[in-house]
């Protein structure tokens, strides 16, 4: 596309500059995290004597095991239940084409645009009414509900793409709707389901607003929600704060690098449909 040589070089330089700008804040965190814990570091200076022990300290004083456990507990409920509900609803909307489906679909599309912030006040009192405020359930239940518009629209898009001949063939062979769903549709839906699972995992893990508002004890929150607790805990030590934040970032980066391909594809499809 770019024809002459000067343009190629300028293009490369611009790209490299942007890449460096993208990485600097993360590298800067690492460099600060490796400074001696009781000092006040300045800017981006690489430590002469890296203090890897800071990560251990931050891990212990930050109760990271307990936080990760709490996050996993939330993820373990949110992701499978959302997947199950979304698959059933998506199948109903996309394949069975039941009556009123169009209306439900429009409603879900509308739901996609609602910011969580707009619903947080009523959610708080709803959770209080259910008596689950300040427990992990106060995050699990609303998240399942809030993820529904996206998840159902996602699964519907998949089921609409399945050729109707497949269902017809199964019907001719005498399969019931349930059999057809389990034997034919579910195996075909596996890629769509796994992409959705990755997305929901990451969104839950990174969820901040709901845990901060609905769970008062930071140790029962998601790890991202607990970052405010780190800010209070380590306000006197920039190295430890950065070490703690990095510990929380690392799992998301690991998941991303492992599933990168499915992941980017998933996000892109999600974006286009959304």
């Amino acid at each position, binding site marked *: 596309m770019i024809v002459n040589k000067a343009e190629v070089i300028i293009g490369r330089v611009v790209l490299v500059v942007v890449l460096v700008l993208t990485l600097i804040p993360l590298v800067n965190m690492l460099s600060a995290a490796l400074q001696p814990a009781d000092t006040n570091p300045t800017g*981006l200076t690489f430590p002469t004597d890296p203090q890897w022990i800071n990560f251990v300290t931050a891990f212990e004083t930050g109760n990271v095991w307990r936080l990760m456990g709490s996050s996993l507990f939330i993820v373990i409920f949110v992701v499978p239940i959302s997947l199950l509900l979304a698959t059933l609803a998506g199948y109903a909307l996309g394949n069975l084409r039941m009556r009123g489906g169009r209306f439900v679909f429009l409603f879900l599309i509308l*739901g996609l645009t609602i910011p969580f912030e707009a619903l947080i006040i009523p959610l708080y*009192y709803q959770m209080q009414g259910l008596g689950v405020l300040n427990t992990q359930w106060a995050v699990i239940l609303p998240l399942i509900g809030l993820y529904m518009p996206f998840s159902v629209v996602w699964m519907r898009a998949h089921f609409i793409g399945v050729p109707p001949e497949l269902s017809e063939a199964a019907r001719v062979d005498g399969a019931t709707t349930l059999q057809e769903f389990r034997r034919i549709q579910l195996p075909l839906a596996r890629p769509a389901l796994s992409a959705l699972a990755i997305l929901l995992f990451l969104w839950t893990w990174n969820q901040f607003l709901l845990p901060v508002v609905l769970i008062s004890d930071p140790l029962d929150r998601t790890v991202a929600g607990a970052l405010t607790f780190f800010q209070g805990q380590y306000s006197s030590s920039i190295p430890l704060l950065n070490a703690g934040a990095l510990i929380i970032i690392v799992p998301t*980066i690991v998941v991303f690098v492992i599933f990168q391909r499915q992941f980017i594809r998933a996000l*892109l499809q999600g974006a286009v449909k*959304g």
Partner: protein
Amino acid sequence: MIYPLFAGIQYSFYRWNGVGPSEWVGLANYIRVFTDETLLGSIRNAFVLIAFFTIIPVAAGLVLATLIRSMRPGPFSSLSQTILFLPQIIPLAAAGIAWSWMYAQTGAINQLLNAIGLGFLARPWLGDFQTALPAVGLIGSWVLTGLCTVLFLTGIGKIDQSLYEAVRLDGASWWREFVTITIPGLRQEIAVLVTITIIAALSSFDLIYTTTLGGPGRATLVPGISIFRIGFTQSNVGLASAFGIVLMALVLACVLPIQRLARASDK
């Protein structure tokens, strides 16, 4: 999902502190949303953030996608995609912490300014009334540029290559190629990204909460933080709910015309 929406609408017509009896106040809460300087200020701030969350990432994404596309596919181009995408997957709250440290008095940005002789510009960026909002906005640009780039890249892949060959035979410059083929070809992607990023700008909470909490003063107050403060710190549930409904209406008011424009230009 539906219940909180209706409960929110219901709360918004009452004055209620969350525990005591509630009182029907009609539209008073809504009137206050549109007359209270603080609340209007937070809406204005949200619109300023759109410049940083939407315009910069979409423009930068277009340019970067064109650049990456022009290179031979190889390890460098896929590595740049991975790196650009990183800010998108880490928790926003953590991004806030990383950047508060960049912007701090002793942070990397002031260090750089001092090093190149612009030390007089150095300041605590997030604590300064003039710079706090743009500083927070730039974090949003940092987070969203990767998403825009990667989505535009796939979009460019779908554009018919013969179009590019045709303009090149006509001796078109890089810029002409960009304006006449790339941008029209990416209409759909641009509409989607503008929608997503506007929603992100109007509902920013995580970033502001971990960087400035709305301060200094009200310099970076946005609707998400206002709702949180009014509803839970000041216990004015009705007003906070009304503000939530207004926020939702604002998002729809911004997003629906864009969707309509995108559909119209497809026909």
